[in-house]
């Protein structure tokens, strides 16, 4: 039976309470009659034979690209770059799709007699991956063959010796990327497209770029003009990356792009209730939910975090396409849209969302308050095409414990950003002009980024810029069940219950507002007309 599409439920009196994520836990909330709930589509069927599909994609590429085997020859320099630990979410069960694709590429490289092969994790300004994370993403076969020989690298955006400036776009944007990737005879990029934002020219132009290059599109103006950054054609973020990507191609860098989409089968069977509509919960779902909730209510937050971070998603490969970047990405986007688009009629006064325990930047880490804001206002708010789900001047209600907690190794600059910058102002433009440069150039943060497992000093700024469109668009942001001090520091309003939050929202949007709840994850993309 084909998977059911996503749909918009209109809440009536017999609608059961709706599941809200709440960090490392859940809440069941009864929404007012007349509210809407957007449910994601069911996961599409996975490819029956992923290995065969990958081989087929490599041999029959899209666009003007020859097959991969025709691009491989003895004596060449081959670089394989791949998406880092921020994808997919949650991390998928072994074998990771990157392992499947890179093994297929390496098989062909070995058959063609290519000796000079280097693998690079495309980190941009993210933290370096640990050996365990690399081994999980690539599999032991690849890790053991490349890592001990120094052939498994992690992109270093602060290593001048290993960066090359390829030129400036017509918009005056510097394009500076990883030297090894730029100077290879062939750069194979292996991507995972979990949402419509990923992939395309953004893979190389962002993943392998330096701060000097990234600052041209990771800024407040770009984010405020990306409506949304999930919509390629209306995203200034993507326009900038596309200009850079084309310049990279003109500079002679040959990119063979391999993009994959995964289905939205996000949680293992014991958390089946997270993917099932509440009125269809079977006995095992109800029992599972009650037992999980009861256990989590009695579990210390640190332990609950460990339990959730250990979840491995049963994601399965849904499609794979390879070849010329733009042709590949067009097909990838069509596949993402086919499984994630949900038509939504009209905007709403109030949007509610339960935020889960994970976002792209806290894998095996802590979801600090800045990441809570980024997940809610950056990612979930932007999961739309055409128009935001919530109207201009409307209210966003987020549900998350928002603890005043930071991972000292992964997020050192976040701590200072929270204590120093947000204590002074929450205005993205003021933050950008007044503080960004000093954090981006800070020697200590650069040292931690390069040698430890820290996000770059400028990264918390980018997280805040990610929220810039939402902050400009919304009349108020309310966080239910969050740490009050942390929530206020973010410039949001704390509320104890959803009912209180809805009452508070009425002060902004008026009596009897229309309410829409985003029932995710699993992910969807609202096509708002």
């Amino acid at each position, binding site marked *: 039976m084909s998977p059911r599409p996503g749909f918009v439920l*209109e809440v009536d009196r017999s*609608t059961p309470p709706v599941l809200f994520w709440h960090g490392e836990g859940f809440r069941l909330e009864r929404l007012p009659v007349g509210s809407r709930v957007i449910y994601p589509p069911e996961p599409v069927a996975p490819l029956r034979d992923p290995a065969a599909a990958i081989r087929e994609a490599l041999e029959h590429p899209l666009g003007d690209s020859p097959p991969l085997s025709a691009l491989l020859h003895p004596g060449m320099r081959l670089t394989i770059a791949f998406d880092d630990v921020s994808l997919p979410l949650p991390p998928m069960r072994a074998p990771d799709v990157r392992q499947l694709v890179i093994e297929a590429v390496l098989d062909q490289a070995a058959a063609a007699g290519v000796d000079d092969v280097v693998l690079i994790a495309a980190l941009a300004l993210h933290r370096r991956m640990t050996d365990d994370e690399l081994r999980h993403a690539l599999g032991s076969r690849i890790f053991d063959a490349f890592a001990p020989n120094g052939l498994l690298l992690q992109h270093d955006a602060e290593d001048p010796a290993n960066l090359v400036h390829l030129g400036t776009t017509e918009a005056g944007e510097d394009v500076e990327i990883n030297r090894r990737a730029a100077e290879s005879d062939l750069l194979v990029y292996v991507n995972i497209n979990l949402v419509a934002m990923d992939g395309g020219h953004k893979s190389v132009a962002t993943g392998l770029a330096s701060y000097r290059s990234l600052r041209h599109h990771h800024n407040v103006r770009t984010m405020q003009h990306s409506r949304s950054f999930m919509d390629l054609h209306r995203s200034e973020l993507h326009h900038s990356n596309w200009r850079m990507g084309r310049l990279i191609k003109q500079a002679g860098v040959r990119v063979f792009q391999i993009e994959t989409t995964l289905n939205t089968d996000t949680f293992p069977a014991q958390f089946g209730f997270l993917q099932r509509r509440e009125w269809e919960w079977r006995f095992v779902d*109800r029992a599972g939910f009650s037992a999980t909730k009861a256990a989590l209510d009695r579990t210390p937050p640190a332990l609950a975090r460990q339990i959730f971070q250990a979840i491995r998603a049963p994601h399965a490969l849904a499609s794979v396409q390879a070849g010329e970047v733009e042709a590949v990405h067009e097909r990838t986007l069509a596949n993402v849209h086919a499984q994630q688009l949900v038509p939504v009629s009209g905007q709403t006064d109030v949007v509610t969302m339960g935020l889960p325990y994970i976002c792209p930047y806290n894998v095996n880490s802590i979801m600090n308050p800045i990441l809570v804001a980024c997940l809610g206002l950056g990612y979930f708010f932007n999961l739309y095409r055409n128009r935001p789900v919530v109207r201009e001047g409307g209210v966003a209600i987020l549900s998350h414990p928002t603890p005043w907690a930071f991972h000292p190794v992964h997020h050192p600059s976040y701590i200072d950003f929270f204590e120093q910058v947000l204590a002074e102002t929450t205005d993205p433009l003021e933050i950008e002009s007044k503080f960004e440069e000093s954090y981006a150039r800070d020697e200590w943060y650069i040292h931690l980024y390069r040698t430890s497992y820290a996000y770059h000093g400028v990264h918390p700024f980018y997280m805040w810029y990610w929220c810039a469109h939402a902050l400009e668009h919304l009349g108020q942001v309310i966080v239910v069940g969050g740490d009050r001090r942390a929530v206020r520091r973010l410039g949001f309003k704390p509320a104890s219950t959803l009912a209180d939050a809805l009452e508070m929202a009425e002060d902004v949007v008026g009596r009897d507002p229309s309410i829409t709840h985003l029932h995710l994850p699993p992910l969807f993309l609202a096509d708002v007309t």
Partner: protein
Amino acid sequence: MRVPARVEAVVRRPPWPGTVPRPPVRRDLGVDYDTAWSRRPPARFVRALLLDNVTRPLTYLATRPKVLGSEHLAALRAPVIFAANHTSHLDTAIVLSALPARFRHRAVVAAAADYFFDRAWKARLWPLLLGTIPMERTKVNRRSADLAAELLGEGWSLVIFPEGGRSPDGWGQEFRGGAAYLAKRCGVPVVPIHLKGVRPLLPKGRGTLRPGTVEVRFGSPLSPLAPTPGGREEDARRFAARIEAAVAALADEAESDWWSARRRAARGTTPAFRGPQAAAWRRAWALAESARRDRPRQPRGSAKPW
């Protein structure tokens, strides 16, 4: 005893939003479920055994029914259609328990196909225990009607709740035409039944039984072939209205006395069976008022001294 909310949340299936269409019922369930096995001798024997030795004693224990008007059944011969008002899941057990054995042991109960036959275990349990047959309640279904007519033709009596479902607020609902149609099609008399006091014991939406006392009142059999004042043949819709009026008169009788109710019925002033056409709170208020009148009064002089 009240089931803890946490346990109820696990045991009880969540309600289905009215704005979401229900998935089609499996072809071998719902109205398509074949209950023929439950009318064969082994199942009938088990049912009779359970009805007489388990269901009936338990029902009597929990509801202490006061059965009135059973003299109307004395001269009747099967098949008969028993049409009762419906406020609780207990109604079926009470009606079956109150019927004389000759009807009770050869009766089928029309049960909502989408509720009592939507799961395999339900489709096996209820026909065995109560002799239920699946009945489509949202629309006229030829299969349901043909089955019921066939069984009436074979001499089975039919217990049916013409309101199509339990009352959401305690007041009666409009009688649908199924019972009247079957009576006219098969030429079978309809016995109106009024059940009083069942709802407080187990109302719609509550999962626990509170023991109490109920009244079962049988009315005079209504013939579907009785001539109308104009001499024209009565159609099923009018006959359904007549059945509803008969149950309403029984309800009035339950609230007052037989003679007063008869006179009001003759004058056409029987109190509305469906309650006042007013806001929900006023309907609830009127129902509570009626219940208050029913409570035994403290004899004068026995007031507590404090």
